[in-house]
């Protein structure tokens, strides 16, 4: 029964949209109020369930985009052209509307501020969402863990959280790979991520960083292979693949 949390069980809760941020023309951050939210770790995701008037239901998983603030959680949804759920969440859901949500889910692709290892984040497209949750968790915890983010994106206009990531932040280095269109005067032509990008934007393997790679399957396969080839211990390379 929705709204009745049973300990030890992930129950469906009713979440209400209380705020929304247009990140790009096709991506929106939903700020959802979820009474009794138990908190979560950076990198975890939630399941969202929609029910149509005729009872038809659809569920999808979305990464949490930020640490919880009390009962408020954030997810960022990238609209998929042939999507069933994402177009509704990006353009249909209005402030005050309810959705059902359960979580947090996933205990592997997570970063804890108590881990002192340097962190390498490698994002492809909307794969940046759980990785920015880690950046935000670092900031909120006030720790100095060195972070590097390599963010591959089609064009400058497709960058999520662009203003926030443009602000200098001690201990966080960000490098971009543009696959279709670069900014004016960008030193490299558009290209898919390769060994030099991961090598120069990341940490040497002997620093034993915790690596988190998230994006579409082909991207994650390639980056994970590059990291292993560069000498990173496969056990320190955690991956999250968005389908397809």
């Amino acid at each position, binding site marked *: 029964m929705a709204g009745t949390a049973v300990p030890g069980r*992930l129950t469906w809760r*009713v979440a209400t949209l209380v705020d929304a941020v247009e990140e790009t023309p096709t991506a929106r951050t939903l700020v959802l109020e979820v009474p009794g939210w138990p908190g979560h770790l950076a990198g975890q995701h939630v399941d969202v369930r929609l029910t149509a008037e005729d009872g038809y239901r659809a569920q999808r998983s979305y990464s949490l985009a930020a640490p919880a603030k009390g009962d408020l959680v954030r997810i960022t949804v990238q609209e998929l052209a042939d999507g069933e759920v994402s177009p509704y969440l990006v353009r249909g859901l209005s402030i005050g509307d309810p959705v059902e949500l359960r979580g947090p889910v996933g205990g592997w692709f997570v970063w804890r501020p108590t881990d002192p290892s340097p962190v390498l984040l490698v994002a492809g497209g909307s794969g940046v969402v759980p990785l920015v949750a880690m950046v935000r968790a670092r900031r909120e915890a006030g720790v100095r863990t060195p972070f590097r983010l390599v963010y591959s994106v089609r064009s400058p206009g497709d960058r999520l959280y662009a203003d926030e990531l443009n602000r200098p932040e001690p201990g966080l280095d960000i490098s971009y790979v543009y696959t279709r269109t670069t900014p004016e005067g960008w030193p490299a032509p558009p290209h898919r991520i390769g060994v030099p990008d991961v090598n120069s934007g990341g940490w040497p393997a002997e620093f034993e960083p915790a690596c988190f790679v998230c994006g579409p399957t082909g991207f994650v396969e390639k980056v994970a292979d590059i990291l292993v080839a560069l000498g990173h211990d496969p056990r320190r390379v955690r991956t999250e693949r968005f389908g397809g």
Partner: protein
Amino acid sequence: MGIVSPGFHGRRRPAVELPPGQYLTEDFPVLSAGPTPRVPLDRWRFTVTTETGEEHGWSWREFQALPAESVTTDIHCVTKWSKLGTHWRGVSLDTLLSDVDTAADFAVVHSYGGYTTNLPLEDLLDGRAWLAHRYEGEDLTPEHGGPVRLLVPHLYFWKSAKWVRGIRLVLEDEPGFWETLGYHEYGDPWREQRYQGD
């Protein structure tokens, strides 16, 4: 029925019945926790170890010599995609376990790369599980678990461990990788056993 999302219509239901919460996909998403291990065939080996430590092992050549079966089946991933009518070729676990003397009720499956998953031994028997090495007429690619993956289509697909290297038979159940990270012990898609307590 839960709360209704105003203005959400969804897609027309597919003509086939899917487990609850699943949607149909035509492609074959890849999900795994880390980099894809690449296992050279001359070093590949599969072992079954009983609760008393007795080991049964097959090299690639020996595995290839075992009778293989063609399997057409639907598969269901806990991340909510289902794929219908997939075609596999592999060796039935009934064949691999036929000479194994065990009193164990549980199996822990081990993969190259360190992944593990657990399931009741009976779920591997009676024509319900295979070691698959071909998919849609081709050798199984590394990202889908090649050279050999477990195929247990009646459970969520995380039980169908990729890059499988061995099965350990145990008297007491031992949760595997995802099972210790909040996922369900058993994982029946038709009962929607996704997470602990479902």
